[in-house]
Each structure stands twice: as structure tokens, then as C-alpha cells.
């Protein structure tokens, strides 16, 4: 049965048409199962794929479309910069999702969506039909004049870029400047850039005395854990970190490693530009990035279904609910979405009172870390996810006990997502 007739068959079933009314070749109701396609195998997509299988008792077929054989976690990746982790330790394959949960992993890229026929066209030539489609492509960077991200690294998607930034740092001349640019919020992993400034400072303090970290922040202030990071910048790394708020990156000289900003030019020995973010290309190219800025996808937070297209759900960093863009809460959103998709496939409505949570630990040095947490609840009046103020808290500074807990947290999250 091809994908279109398969869909029509399922539609007939849901309309209550009896198998007797259908041709004999269609009388195989038992083997026809709804199919959900998940595009993108990061924290959001992998979690959605796993839980769709687990929570449906394997009665729903799940196809995960992901071009890479290995996903490298951005979580913990700053620790590569100060030599506390290897990139290889941050890699996750999709074998467990395939073998333990029966997720069909297709190593390809989706090149076209058709929400009317509910089909996805892949770069490998396949066209696949779906009952529900979940997009989890993560973020895409915006262009900055002169920025060549192969020379001026972002290192904001883990993997090879982080390894290269480590090498640039090691090759930095003594007394040099590591200059980094932080984009305006919202960006992926709110504490991440400040965490990076700290671990780079930690590396330089121990290995390259006299070198500096200059933090050019596009935001008016440290966006999260202000007390912790301010203390780190002004005490732990006093004389090393220079924090410059409200500094908009206007252009980059990628060959000379110059950041051209609203506050003038900064010459770097190593320049690290985290460009401004927007939703993944597949979201934007298909008219799904319908937030007021055009950067993110508006969704119904009960199901993460797009407000622009029926049957397409968007989770993780591309969604525009206002929840933070980070792996832990992407996992949380994926569960809400998976539960809702299964209910919708069953003809029911999504659960009406979802709660999601965010938690993360940030390394501040090679043996201390801080944490930040928050939870969000669905508010029926505004039909949006709202921060629960009493749940929003941060550690009092950094500690070695938190450093140990950071790995427990990360390993648990990795396991709940990929294993």
C-alpha cells in the first residue's frame, strides 16, 4: 500500500467505514498503524521518537529522520574547552532508539513538506506519508556581514566546532585575547555563553597567564544567574574576564579576527561569535515561523501543533512558546507533544494541564558548577506556557558538589533521551 492510499485507509477507519466496504487488499486493518515522522534527532526529536513508541506500546510507527549518525550534545560541551571532557564523550548514536524502542531511523534530510497530502520528501529520493509530523530541527544562525563560521567559530552546536575552538585556544599566544560575542536573547541555552566565558577563563588562568576573555554581550545584562556569573567574572576571574554589555555585533573581519560592534572594534587572538538564532530552515521555509519576529514557530502548547499548519508539531529550540531553548526542557516539551499526538491519533484531545521544567548545571571552573531551574505551566486564560515564579531559582554561587551533580544530571538526561 502506498503512502497516500495508506492515509486514505486510516481516514476511512477513523470515519468508521467498515473493512467490508473496502477492497480485499485493504482488509488488513491489523497491520495498518498510524505513522508519525520526527525530523531532527536532538534532545527534542529523540525524546519524542522514544516516547511515541514507549507510550503507544509500539502501536504507532515512528520514523526519525536525521542526517547525522552521531548526535553531539551541546550540554557539557563547554567542558571540552578547558579540557575536562572529550568531544567523543558527548556523542550519542540512535542504535538504542532503533533496537530497544523500534524507532525507524532514516539517515537523510527532509527537503520538502506537503501538509495537504501529509508527505515528506527526503534527500534520498523517498517520499513518506504521515498522520502526524514533528519538527525538531533546532536553531539556525542568522548571517552577520563578514562572518565566516568556518574561520570564526560558533562552537554552539557541539561536535567538531567545539574541538576546533579548543585547538584555537591551545594555540593562542600568551597574553592574547579570547573575544566572544553573545547574541540577543532568545538564544539556545541561556547560561551557556557565560558558562563558556568562565571555563575559557579557567583554562587561560591555569595555562596562559596574562591572557584575557572579553565578553561582548548583545544583551543589556547577564541574562541568567547574574549573581553567580558576576561573582565569577569579578572575583574568580578578576583581571581575566572583561564583561561588556549592550554590545551589538555589526560585522566581523573573519581573516583578521576583528569584531566590529556598536562600541567599536575588538581585535581578538581567538574570536568566537555565537550568531543570533532563528528557527531551523525547515520551519522557516514552510511558512511555520509565524511568531511576531518571524524567527520562531507559534504552536499550541498543549500539543505543540503549529498554528499555521494542521498535523505538524514543532518542539525544541524552534518553537516560540517563550520557554527557554535548551536540551532539558526540549525533552520536556517532546513528552507533552508525544502524549498529545497519541491522544489526537486516538481521537481525543490533549491533556489540558501540562507542566514542563527546565534544569541545568553550568561549569564555572574545572571543579565547580552552578545550577538554574524553572518550571512552566499551561495557563488557560492566555493559552500559553507561563513561568511558575516560585519554581524559578538558582544556586548560591558555584560549588564542587554541584560539579559532581552536573554529571549525574547530564547523564540522566542523556539516558532519558537516547537510551
Amino acid at each position: 500500500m502506498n503512502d497516500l492510499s495508506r492515509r486514505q485507509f486510516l481516514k476511512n477507519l477513523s470515519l468508521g467505514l467498515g473493512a467490508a466496504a473496502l477492497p480485499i487488499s485493504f482488509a488488513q486493518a491489523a497491520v495498518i498503524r498510524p505513522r508519525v515522522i520526527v525530523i531532527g534527532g536532538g534532545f527534542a526529536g529523540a525524546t519524542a521518537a522514544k516516547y511515541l513508541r514507549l507510550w503507544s506500546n509500539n502501536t504507532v510507527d515512528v520514523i526519525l529522520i536525521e542526517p547525522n549518525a552521531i548526535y553531539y550534545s551541546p550540554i557539557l560541551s563547554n567542558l571540552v574547552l578547558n579540557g575536562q571532557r572529550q568531544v567523543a564523550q558527548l556523542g550519542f548514536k540512535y542504535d538504542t532508539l532503533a533496537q530497544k524502542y523500534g524507532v525507524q531511523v532514516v539517515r537523510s534530510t527532509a527537503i520538502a513538506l506537503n501538509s495537504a497530502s501529509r508527505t515528506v520528501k527526503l534527500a534520498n529520493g523517498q517520499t513518506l506519508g504521515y498522520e502526524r509530523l514533528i519538527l525538531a530541527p533546532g536553531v539556525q544562525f542568522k548571517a552577520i556581514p563578514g562572518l565566516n563560521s568556518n574561520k570564526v567559530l560558533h562552537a554552539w552546536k557541539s561536535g567538531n566546532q567545539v574541538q576546533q575552538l579548543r585547538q584555537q585556544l591551545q594555540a593562542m599566544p600568551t597574553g592574547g585575547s579570547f573575544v566572544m560575542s553573545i547574541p540577543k536573547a532568545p538564544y539556545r541555552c541561556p547560561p551557556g555563553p557565560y558558562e563558556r566565558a568562565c571555563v575559557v577563563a579557567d583554562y587561560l588562568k591555569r595555562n596562559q597567564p596574562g591572557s584575557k576573555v572579553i565578553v561582548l554581550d548583545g544583551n543589556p545584562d547577564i541574562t541568567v544567574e547574574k549573581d553567580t556569573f558576576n561573582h565569577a567574572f569579578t572575583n574568580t576571574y578578576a583581571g581575566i574576564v572583561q564583561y561588556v554589555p549592550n554590545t551589538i555585533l555589526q560585522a566581523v573581519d573573519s581573516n583578521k579576527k576583528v569584531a566590529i560592534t556598536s562600541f567599536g572594534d575588538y581585535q581578538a587572538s581567538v574570536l568566537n561569535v555565537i550568531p543570533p538564532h532563528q528557527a531551523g530552515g525547515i520551519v522557516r521555509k514552510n511558512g511555520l515561523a509565524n511568531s511576531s519576529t518571524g524567527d520562531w514557530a507559534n504552536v499550541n502548547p498543549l500539543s505543540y501543533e503549529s498554528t499555521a499548519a494542521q498535523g505538524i508539531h514543532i518542539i525544541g529550540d524552534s518553537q516560540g512558546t517563550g520557554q527557554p531553548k535548551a536540551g532539558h526542557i526540549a525533552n520536556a516539551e517532546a513528552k507533552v507533544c508525544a502524549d498529545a499526538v497519541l491522544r489526537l491519533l486516538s481521537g481525543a484531545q490533549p491533556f489540558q494541564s501540562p507542566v514542563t521544567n527546565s534544569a541545568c548545571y553550568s561549569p564555572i571552573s574545572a571543579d565547580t558548577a552552578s545550577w538554574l531551574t524553572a518550571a512552566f505551566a499551561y495557563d488557560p486564560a492566555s493559552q500559553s506556557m507561563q513561568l511558575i515564579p516560585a519554581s524559578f531559582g538558582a544556586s548560591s554561587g558555584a560549588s564542587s558538589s554541584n560539579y559532581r551533580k552536573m554529571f549525574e544530571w547530564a547523564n540522566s538526561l542523556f539516558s532519558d533521551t537516547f537510551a
Partner: protein
Amino acid sequence: MKRKYLSWLGALALLASSSLSSSANATDYTGGRLTNTNISAAGVLIPDGARLLASQCFQCHGTDGKSTTGIDSLAGESQNELVSEMREMKAKNKVDLMHYQAKAYTDAQIQLIAAYFASISGGGNNDNDDDDDNHHNDDNDAND
């Protein structure tokens, strides 16, 4: 050995506030949890929405509350014990990650979450008391 507590009446009362209704004849793709009440093998009532609310704990406490790290498992904990731990953390002002998390949930939601974990049998490392930094109420020295 942990006792399983049944709190049928409490959980049923909570269901009154739950707004989901399933369509009668639809195929259930939700592993049998779409119906409003479900009795697990452990004899514990799993109200609608409990699994989804509880799944927010899985990121740290493991899928279905079966931890793969030094963080406590929640699977198989008694409903009453989980409820009382969460309520204690809700009530206290302590700079502790779980104390903030606990404040995210209503008492009714805590009941649902606890009912779910109580329904799962066999956690990995419920009682690793040698690692009490990861215990939720790790400030319980006063009443131990």
C-alpha cells in the same frame, strides 16, 4: 520492602478536575492510559495525566523513575511517601533545585505524579543513603 498505598478515593476526586474525555470508539494508541482510570499491575490507580506529569521527573530520575545514575529512583516508591516529600519541599524555603521544582506542582498534581511512580515496580537505586546529596530531602538530619 516498600508498601504500596492505595488512595482510590483521593485520586478519583482529582479526576473530577481533569478535563480529558476520550472518544468512546477510537482506537487507543496511548498504551491504555487514555481511559480516565487505569489499574496498574501493582494495584495502583493511575489517573489520566499522571504519566505525562510524572514524565517531567524522568529527565533526572530516569525513564519511568528508574534512575541510571546516582540520582534517586522514584519507581516503586509509596504514593504517600512521595507526596509527603514533595509537600515538605514545597513548604520549605531552601536553595535546592528540587525544592524549587516541588513548588511547580499543585497538591493535586503531586498526588497524580506519586500515583504514577507508585504504580511502577522495581526502581534501581531508591535508597542509596551513602549519596545523600542527591536525596530530595537532604536536609532531614533534624528528624532522622
